[in-house]
């Protein structure tokens, strides 16, 4: 196993899938000559040329729609959003075109497209550049939403997303790009829709995804020292949600904390909490608690920003509460 950054794992997935299938192309702002705003597409222009690695104007709505159109006639576009914040100007094409084409056409048309880019907050980027929209996309039938937390998952899931016959919103993280991890040398894919137990535990379940996985694991370490044995489940895919994995763990631990990066109201955690109280009601020894971003636009000041964000301390505190250890 080689140790790769999350960025390079994504780069490998892109390269391998573009080598594998001539219908796959990458389109977005600065993806070609600039090698990507976050260098995820480094080297791809040189290898695949300007028809398959395409710099666009700043026109997300337009090139998202061009991607959907290309997908409708059999190509497999990968549309890079420089950050998912900018997908808001393109969201009509994602929700009203990509997600509905198969249904509206009575099953005649598939839209095998990936919309990918970093989501959520980085450091001090301010209110308009620090937003997590996974709950929005996961609300929409016809879309799949994938959010890997590790280099290995990033590579395996991006390859699956590119091969998928439906539109996939693939959300990365600027704060994840430099994360290192072991990545298998041989070819592999990770199926969409399958959560991963990142730590086995018996007394409480911590459900997390993307940037909250690392703090969840840190919290679990801290809690272990206090005699609390936490299981950490990384959703990896938000839609379709791996309900079985969640319910199986809660049936075992009888306690649950959900940690997500975004805002609370109707967030991913709300859906997971609803699922658990509905399907595992009799297993619960305490209410499901959620850890999430402060319910405010992201402030620029670094101390305020830190206070707004989810971290291991906040996750550990919530776990103590569901274990009645506080």
């Amino acid at each position, binding site marked *: 196993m080689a140790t790769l950054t999350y960025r390079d794992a994504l780069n490998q997935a892109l390269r391998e899938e573009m080598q594998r299938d001539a219908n796959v*192309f990458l389109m977005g702002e600065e993806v070609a000559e600039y090698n990507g705003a976050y260098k995820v597409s480094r080297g791809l222009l040189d290898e695949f040329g300007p*028809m398959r690695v395409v710099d*666009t*104007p700043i*026109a997300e*709505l*337009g*090139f*998202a*729609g*061009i*991607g*959907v*159109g*290309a*997908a*409708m*006639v*059999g*190509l497999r576009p990968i549309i890079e959003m420089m950050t998912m914040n900018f997908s808001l100007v393109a969201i*009509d*094409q994602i929700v*009203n*075109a990509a997600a509905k*084409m*198969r*249904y*509206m*056409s*009575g*099953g*005649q*048309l*598939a839209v095998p497209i990936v919309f990918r880019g970093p989501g959520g907050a980085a450091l001090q980027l301010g209110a308009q550049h620090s937003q997590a929209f996974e709950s929005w996309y996961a609300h929409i*039938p*016809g879309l*799949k939403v994938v959010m890997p937390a590790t280099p290995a998952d990033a590579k395996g899931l991006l390859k699956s997303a590119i091969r*998928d*016959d*439906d539109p996939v919103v693939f959300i990365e993280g600027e704060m994840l790009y430099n994360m290192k991890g072991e990545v298998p040398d041989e070819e592999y894919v990770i199926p969409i829709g399958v959560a991963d137990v990142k730590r086995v535990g018996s007394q409480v379940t911590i459900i997390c995804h993307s940037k909250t996985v690392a703090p969840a694991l840190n919290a679990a370490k801290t809690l272990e020292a206090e005699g609390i044995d936490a299981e950490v489940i990384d959703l990896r895919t938000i839609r379709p949600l791996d309900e079985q994995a969640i319910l199986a763990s809660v049936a075992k631990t009888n306690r649950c904390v959900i940690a997500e990066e975004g805002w609370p109201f109707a967030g991913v955690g709300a859906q997971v909490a609803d699922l658990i109280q509905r399907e595992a009601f009799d297993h619960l020894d305490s209410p499901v608690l959620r850890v999430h971003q402060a319910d405010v636009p992201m402030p620029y000041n670094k101390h305020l920003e830190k206070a707004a964000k989810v971290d291991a301390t906040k996750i550990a505190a919530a776990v103590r509460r569901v274990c009645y250890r506080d």
Partner: protein
Amino acid sequence: MAVSTDKPPRSKRGSGAPAYTSEWNDWLRMMLLMRRFEEKAGEAYSLGQIGGFCHLYIGQEAVAVGTISALRDDDYIVSAYREHGQALARGMTPRSIMAELFGKATGCSRGKGGSMHLFDASKNFLGGHGIVGGQIPLGAGFAWAAKYRGTDQVSICYFGDAAANIGAFHEALNMAGLWKLPAIFVIENNGYGMGTAVKRAAAITDLAERGAGYGMPGVVVDGQDVDAVRAATDEAVRRARAGEGPTLMDIRCYRYVGHSMSDAPHGTYRTKDEVDAFRQRDPIEVLAARMREAGMLDDDRWAALEAEIAAEVADAVQFAEESPDPDPSELYTDVLAPVEGR
């Protein structure tokens, strides 16, 4: 220059246009089929057999016929919600379209799409879209795919005059011009977006001028004259196939009926006189007159044609009426690919 709402447009090319005499019979038949089909659809709507929004094509027939007759079967077509005419022109059967309007399982979108979402992938007829301007990037996308694959296919994209003021138009046309995509952008300029005249919605009334901002020719075309429409389209198709890039066509036409079935035939936003003035140059009459002149049409032939088409439309309605609704299980299919993959 004047917009079509002020007075019937004078053709920019009608006179100079080549006469496509060999195609006139097919064109007349198709335009008349559209007219009668839409009249029947209007009736069926009033009877509650068709639901939702239903936007009729009556008056604009020469646009669909003149443009689509210039295309090859492997070219791509996409339109808005006022697309019954283009679907017929593309050779989709009146049965499959009427059944879709009725929401039946035999409809071209299996009853799931409806009037605004007609699809026939086998004919590269790629919808039927309901968000104003939303189909313009899609049309550019089909053109992108043709260029990507190195074919000489063309993508034609229809939208209304009002759609020329929305962001998707700007972004798609800029990229099409920048990348010289084989696309034809057709403004079906019927003078109004719902109740809003072009001059109340666009800072300039000659929308063709916007082509210059995207490095593509913008041509004004007389949409009452099917020969003129075809001639202009031939040139746009030639450019696209030759790799010379996209064309913006501003085809001046007129809808005789309301915006949709829920809108009055002519509301307060236009006068009956204006509607009548356009009916004076009815696109079907214009072609019929030429054919009579050329000895290609007489009263008997006309009567026969009307009878033939009446039967065809009646058959389509009967087919739609007798067709089954989709199975209840259809509610949950076609959301995602079947798990085995398609």
